[in-house]
């Protein structure tokens, strides 16, 4: 009868594994460094978190307001001719308003005001913002 293998031999309980030289000596500083790094990262994050929350809130409110404006703005859904009428009306209103302001504003008095030189790029920009003017000009 085969003898049962005796696993309780003291020799078998010895540790056959080893580690690289100095491993346990350097382990403490390795773990200490990792903990310090972790703590400094956590510190920075807790500093930034409330600021980020505030910025996100403002961004959300802004987007909601912008979205609502876009949704309820009349010029977005109008057709071409309707847009023209709307823009002409807006131009007229703006002209009236401008004349009213000019009446009281010395800076824009045509008798005394010197001729200003306008940057062509500013003109292009102005024309691009209001396509109605360009359309009117093209009709002439």
């Amino acid at each position, binding site marked *: 009868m085969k003898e049962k293998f005796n696993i309780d031999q003291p020799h078998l309980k*010895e540790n*056959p*594994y080893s580690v*690289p030289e100095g491993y346990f000596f350097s*382990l*403490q500083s390795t*773990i200490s460094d990792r903990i310090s790094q972790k703590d400094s990262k956590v510190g920075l994050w807790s500093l930034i978190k409330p600021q980020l929350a505030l910025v996100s809130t403002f961004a959300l409110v802004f987007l909601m307001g912008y979205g609502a404006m876009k949704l309820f703005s009349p010029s977005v859904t109008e057709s071409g001719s309707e847009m023209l009428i709307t823009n002409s009306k807006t131009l007229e209103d703006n002209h009236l308003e401008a004349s009213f302001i000019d009446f009281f504003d010395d800076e824009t008095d045509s008798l005394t005001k010197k001729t200003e030189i306008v940057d062509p790029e500013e003109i292009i920009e102005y024309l691009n913002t209001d396509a109605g003017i360009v359309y009117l000009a093209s009709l002439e």
Partner: protein
Amino acid sequence: MDDKDLLALYKEDGKGHYAFNLIVGKYSERLYWHIRKIVASHEDANDLLQNTFIKAWNGLPEFREESKLFTWLYRIATNEVLTFLKRKKVRSFLSLTDYSKQLENILESDVYFNGDATQKALHKAILKLPKKQRLVFNMRYFDELKYEEISEILGTSVGALKASYHHATQKIRESLQELL
């Protein structure tokens, strides 16, 4: 310094890091060998040990001293090992490889394994055990922990642990009988 003094030192203002370094110095070797005998590889054991201590550092403020400090650390290390083995098992399954075979190969080629043929056969047999049985066997056989201590660490009844150890011992004996 005993655990009670270490924990008292940890709670003192500005002494947390210093106290924790002492804890690492006191328990790192024991925990390392506990982990190493399960995972075989030094690199894996090193990673798991470091993770254990990082988790211990994070959990220390909430440690209520209901168990001994060493039992608590042992439990963290054991959970790290179990999670690691679970991940390895899934990865091996997906890549159609046998993880227990991989462990055997690690043992064969490991420069940090200095045992003789019998010791190698024993450790190969241990690596073939199911992971929880492996843990129970190592904690009883190598670390010589009492069943009550193992029960506290693993959250398993003493009766179940005794049965587990008995089965593990039988399997290892049969395995060694075949190999040698």
